[in-house]
């Protein structure tokens, strides 16, 4: 349905995304996980044609066969809401505070679908039911409902024109843990019921684990590892993925006697470099605990893993050669 090939997004000298290639099929639930500044939001925006003006998009984005990489806004607008839709992190900022939420959701139905007000209203009611909002909320304003309900309104809005792909950029980050669980469940259910593809972007490995079937790990603009979510999280191949999973605090503690040292968390040394100062070869070189001399200068090839997916890492290449 969506084929992305060698997609690069550059800002002057900085590379936000380097030669990303992947496909999304109907019903897929794909996670994009990475730390802030790794380019994951840029990747999401490029799939809906909303990268900032300063960004240079090269490569290929084919939406149901139509080439859209670098296409003008006018072309993208035909697909937004109807083919590809997006929800954001901050549900309050994405809603017009002066408009009743029912009106907000009705708008795309009146504009894009040309429905009558009565028909649009009926559709909004069924959408509200689908996302778990009581119909009585229709006439309320955004400030009158909770954060979780606002995110539900935005999901209803995004679904109004039956998109084939829903991009969710950190949809649960601003929400409380228990609410976030419900929203994640809702997104999974909607994707399954509607056979809609879901691209779920998050820095939160726990949310990714719950929401997605496949995952792409992004670091420094490269997709450094991909595969079925369960196997990537259980048996990460790339040193960065390994470090990221290890650095996650565990909700398990052992009692500590007086004067006893608490075990420290494994860490990744240093910090993510700015996009303009990334190493030319493997993006993770300089922070990698198992770095080889070749890593800084030469970009590693993808090495497939059993069970699907793979990682780009010179170590993996070297090991598979010797094996």
């Amino acid at each position, binding site marked *: 349905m969506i084929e992305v090939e060698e997609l690069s997004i550059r800002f002057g000298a900085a590379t936000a995304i380097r030669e990303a290639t992947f496909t999304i099929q109907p019903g897929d639930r794909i996670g994009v996980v990475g*730390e*802030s500044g790794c380019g994951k939001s840029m990747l999401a925006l490029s799939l809906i044609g909303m990268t900032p003006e300063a960004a240079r998009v090269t490569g290929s984005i084919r939406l149901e066969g139509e080439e859209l990489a670098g296409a003008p806004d006018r072309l993208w607008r035909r697909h937004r809401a109807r083919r590809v839709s997006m929800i954001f992190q901050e549900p309050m900022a994405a809603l017009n505070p002066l408009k009743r939420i029912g009106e907000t959701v009705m708008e795309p139905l009146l504009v894009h679908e040309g429905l009558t007000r009565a028909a649009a209203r009926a559709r909004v009611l069924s959408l509200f039911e689908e996302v778990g909002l009581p119909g009585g909320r229709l006439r309320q304003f955004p400030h009158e409902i909770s954060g979780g309900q606002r995110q539900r309104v935005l999901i209803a809005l995004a679904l109004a024109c039956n998109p084939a792909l829903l991009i969710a950029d950190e949809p649960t980050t601003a929400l*409380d*843990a*228990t*609410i*976030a*669980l419900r929203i994640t469940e809702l997104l999974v259910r909607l994707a399954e019921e509607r056979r809609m593809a879901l691209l779920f972007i998050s*820095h939160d*490995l*726990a949310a990714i*684990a719950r929401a997605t079937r496949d995952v792409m790990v992004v670091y420094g603009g490269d997709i450094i590892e991909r595969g079925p979510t369960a196997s990537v*999280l259980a048996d990460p191949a790339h040193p960065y993925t390994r*470090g*990221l999973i290890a*650095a*996650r*605090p*565990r*909700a*398990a*503690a*052992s*009692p*500590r006697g*007086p004067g006893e*040292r*608490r075990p*420290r*968390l*494994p*860490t*990744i040394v240093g*910090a*993510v470099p700015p996009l303009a100062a990334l190493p030319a070869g493997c993006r993770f070189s300089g922070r990698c605990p198992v770095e080889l001399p070749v890593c800084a200068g030469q970009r590693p090839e993808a090495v497939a893993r059993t069970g699907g997916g793979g990682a780009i890492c010179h170590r993996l290449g070297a090991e598979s050669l010797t094996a």
Partner: protein
Amino acid sequence: MTTPLLSVGNVTRRYRLARTSFHAPRPVLTAVSDASFTLDRSRTLGVVGESGSGKSTLARMVMAFERPDEGRVLFEGQDLAQLAPSALRRLRQRFQMVFQDPYGSLDPRRTVANSIAEPLRAIGAGDHAAKVAQALDQVGLRAGDGEKYPHEFSGGQRQRIAIARAIVTRPALLVADEAVSALDVSVQAQILNLLMDLQDELGLAILFISHDLAVVGSLCDDIIVMKDGHIVEAGPASKVLSAPSRAYTKTLLQAAEI
């Protein structure tokens, strides 16, 4: 029996909200209701809860930014609400705070050294430069970093600076309000480790407030779970995490786990 470093006894804090109608009396929100706990030197107490649970209000009462409507906050046996303003300001060097947003907690117009020295200036302590340099070293920054401005640092480094400011007066208690929530996972682990190191080195007691049960579990000896202003579960971290007694705690646990 020795006095605990921090003893919070039956504190309640209510806020009067804005009027919703001309006739009705102003509604009252009870942000914290009848909360009690103690915290000893070199120990870490985690306070877990979601937004609106009252955990930040609790922190603000411990920091004496707000007075409890009922109950007492005793720091080293002294009731913070009973102290004269000048005495309270002097005592503040003994309990310090680290905030959530590493971008908002440093004055953008001041050098890092200047910000770190602020608690020293407040008590008129001499020899700032040496103490600031030592604090920078303790949080893993270089002495030369003091001459720079906050915008020259990453989020994790800024949080280190904020921690340096909090420990420069050698406090006995550190209140950390969502201190690692805004950080990336890999940086979060570095800061959590730093807090553990400082605790070992300085004998700090840490009141660690977070919405993330996993983060709290990695750092804390004891855990309090708050919901709607009430403490709904309390106990040693190992017990709360392995055998939570409340369904709410179980949900939080579920949210934190892969």
